[in-house]
C-alpha cells in the first residue's frame, strides 16, 4: 500500500497565507460595499461599463477618431439605443403587462386547483386567516392597474436610480476618454519599488474582468435570444420577456438557469400555454446543455471557477445589499476579488515581497 504523499510544509503555509489574503480582501470589500454602496455603485458600474465598451472606443481610436469624441459617440449611441428600445417597445411591454394582469386571477385559480394538495397541507400548518390574507395580497399585486407608480412617493424612489445611471455614464465617459492617462498618472504616485508589480497586477485584473464581462454578456444575450425563440415556437405567452429574464438570470452561475426557466414552466403549469410543462422543461434543459457545452466555453471559458456554496452565499449577500442588481453583480464581483487576490499573491511572491 502506498503511503500518502504529505504536502511540504511551505506549500501548506502558502495555502494558509493565500486563504488569509482571500478572507482579508473579501472582508474589506464587503465592509466597503455595505458602508458605501450608494457611493461605490456608480463607480463600479461605470468602470464595468467602460471595460465592456472599450473595444468599440479602441476601434474608433484606430480609425483616428479622438478618444473623447469616441467615448461620446459610444455612450451617446448606447443611451440613444436604450431610449429608442424603451420608447418603441413600451406600448408592447405595457400591453403584455396588462394582458398578464387580466389573466392573473385565472392563472391563480388554476394554480390553486393544481396545488390543492399543497394548500391543504399549508392549511394545516398556517392559520387559515394568514393564508387568506396572503392570497388577497397576491391577487391585489397581480391585478393592480394604472400607472406603475402608485404615488409621487414611488416616483421619487426612482430618482436615486436615475442619478446613479447618470453618474455611471459620467464615470464610464471619463474612463473611456482618458482611462489610459488617469491610470498612468496614478502610477506616478506608486514608488519605484512597487511600480512594475502594481502595473502588472492592475493590467491582469483588468484583462480578467474584461474577458469575463464581455464573455458573460455575449453568453446572456445568446441564451436570452435562444430561449425567446424556443418559447415563441412553443407558443408560450410573453416569450420575449421570459427570454430577456432568462438571459439576465443566466449571469448568475448554477442558480441563474434554474430561476430563468421557472416562469415559463409555471405558466405552462397554470394552463397559460398549450404546450405541456415537461416539453418546455426539456427544451430549456437542451438549451442549457448547449450553453454549457458550446456557448459558455466559447464566450466566457473557465475564468470564474467558484464553488456552489460561494455562489449561493454571494447571491444572498448581493440581494441583501442591492436587490436584483446586487444579485447579478455579486457572483462576478466575488470571482474578480478572488482573481485579484490570487494575482496579488503571485505578484508579491514573484517580486519577493512575501
Amino acid at each position, binding site marked *: 500500500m502506498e503511503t500518502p504523499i504529505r504536502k511540504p510544509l511551505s506549500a501548506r503555509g502558502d495555502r494558509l497565507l493565500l486563504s488569509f489574503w482571500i478572507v482579508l480582501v473579501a472582508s474589506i470589500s464587503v465592509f466597503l460595499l455595505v458602508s458605501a454602496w450608494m457611493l461605490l455603485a456608480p463607480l463600479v458600474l461605470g468602470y464595468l461599463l467602460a471595460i465592456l465598451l472599450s*473595444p468599440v472606443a*479602441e476601434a474608433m*481610436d*484606430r480609425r483616428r477618431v479622438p478618444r473623447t469624441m469616441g467615448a461620446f459617440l459610444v455612450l451617446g449611441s448606447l443611451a440613444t439605443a436604450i431610449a429608442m428600445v424603451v420608447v418603441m417597445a413600451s406600448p408592447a411591454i405595457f400591453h403584455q403587462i396588462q394582458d398578464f394582469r387580466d389573466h392573473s386571477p385565472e392563472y391563480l385559480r388554476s394554480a390553486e386547483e393544481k396545488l390543492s394538495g399543497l394548500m391543504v397541507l399549508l392549511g394545516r400548518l398556517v392559520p387559515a386567516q394568514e393564508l387568506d390574507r396572503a392570497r388577497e395580497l397576491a391577487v391585489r399585486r397581480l391585478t393592480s392597474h394604472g400607472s406603475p407608480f402608485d404615488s409621487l412617493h414611488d416616483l421619487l424612489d426612482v430618482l436615486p436610480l436615475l442619478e446613479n445611471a447618470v453618474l455611471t455614464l459620467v464615470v464610464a465617459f471619463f474612463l473611456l476618454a*482618458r482611462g*489610459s*492617462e*488617469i491610470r*498612468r*498618472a*496614478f*502610477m*506616478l*504616485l506608486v514608488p*519605484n*519599488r512597487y*511600480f*512594475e*508589480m502594481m*502595473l*502588472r497586477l*492592475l*493590467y491582469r485584473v*483588468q*484583462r480578467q474582468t474584461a474577458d469575463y464581462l464581455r464573455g458573460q454578456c455575449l453568453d446572456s444575450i445568446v441564451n436570452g435570444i435562444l430561449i425567446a425563440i424556443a418559447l415563441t415556437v412553443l407558443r408560450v405567452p410573453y416569450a420575449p420577456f421570459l427570454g430577456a429574464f432568462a438571459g439576465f438570470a443566466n449571469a448568475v452561475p448554477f442558480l441563474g438557469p434554474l430561476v430563468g426557466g421557472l416562469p415559463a414552466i409555471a405558466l405552462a403549469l397554470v394552463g397559460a400555454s398549450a404546450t405541456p410543462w415537461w416539453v418546455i422543461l426539456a427544451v430549456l434543459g437542451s438549451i442549457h446543455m448547449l450553453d454549457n457545452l458550446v456557448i459558455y466555453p466559447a464566450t466566457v471559458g473557465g475564468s470564474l471557477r467558484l464553488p456552489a456554496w460561494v455562489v449561493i452565499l454571494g447571491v444572498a449577500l448581493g440581494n441583501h445589499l442591492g436587490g436584483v442588481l446586487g444579485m447579478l453583480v455579486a457572483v462576478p464581483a466575488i470571482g474578480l476579488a478572488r482573481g485579484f487576490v490570487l494575482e496579488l499573491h*503571485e*505578484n508579491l511572491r*514573484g*517580486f*519577493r515581497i512575501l
Partner: protein
Amino acid sequence: MLAPEPSGEQVHPLWTDLVSRIRVGRPDRMSEWLRRVPLLEGTHRRHLSHLARILHRRRYEAGEVVFRQGDVGSGMYIVQTGRIRIVAEDPVRGEIQLSILDAGQCFGEMSLFDHGPRSASAIAHEDSVLFGLFEGDLDQLERTRPQAAVRLLHNLSLSVSLRLRHTNERLRDIEEGSARGPY
C-alpha cells in the same frame, strides 16, 4: 548616446489632465526624442506621439534598483538620461557587471515577451530617467496602432536576435578557450 530631452514643467499629470488642463507639450518633445531611439527606427512620427502617451516615465536615483534578478518581469525600459548598470548576481562570485547602458539603449525586453523572471539586475549607475513599456501597454498598442506594434516587435526581435548571435559567438570563443575578457 542620445541627447537628453529638455526638462519640462514639473506638474503632476494627474492635475494637468483632470483639473487645470494645462498642456505641457511633453508628448511632442518625447516623440521627437523617441524618433532617435534605435529600437523605434522606422516608426511613423504619428505613431511615435501615440507611443509617447503610452510609455511610463520613471526617475531613479543613483544606486536605486530598477529590478532585481529573479523578480517577475512584465516589460522593458529605454534609458532617456543617465546610465544603467546591468549586473548578474552569482551566489559564489557576487555581482558580475554585464554592461552599462547609456541614453537610447533598452533593457529587459525578454520579459516583455515571456513575462518570466529577470535574468539580471538593473541598477541606476547615476541619476537616470527611464521610459517603461509593459505588457499592458504593448497590448493596447496592438489594438489601437497595430502598424506601430508590428514595427516595434520587428525591431525588438532584431535586437534580441543580435544579442543571441553575440552570445553564441562568446560561447564559441569560451569553448575554444579564447574568451575575450568580460562581457
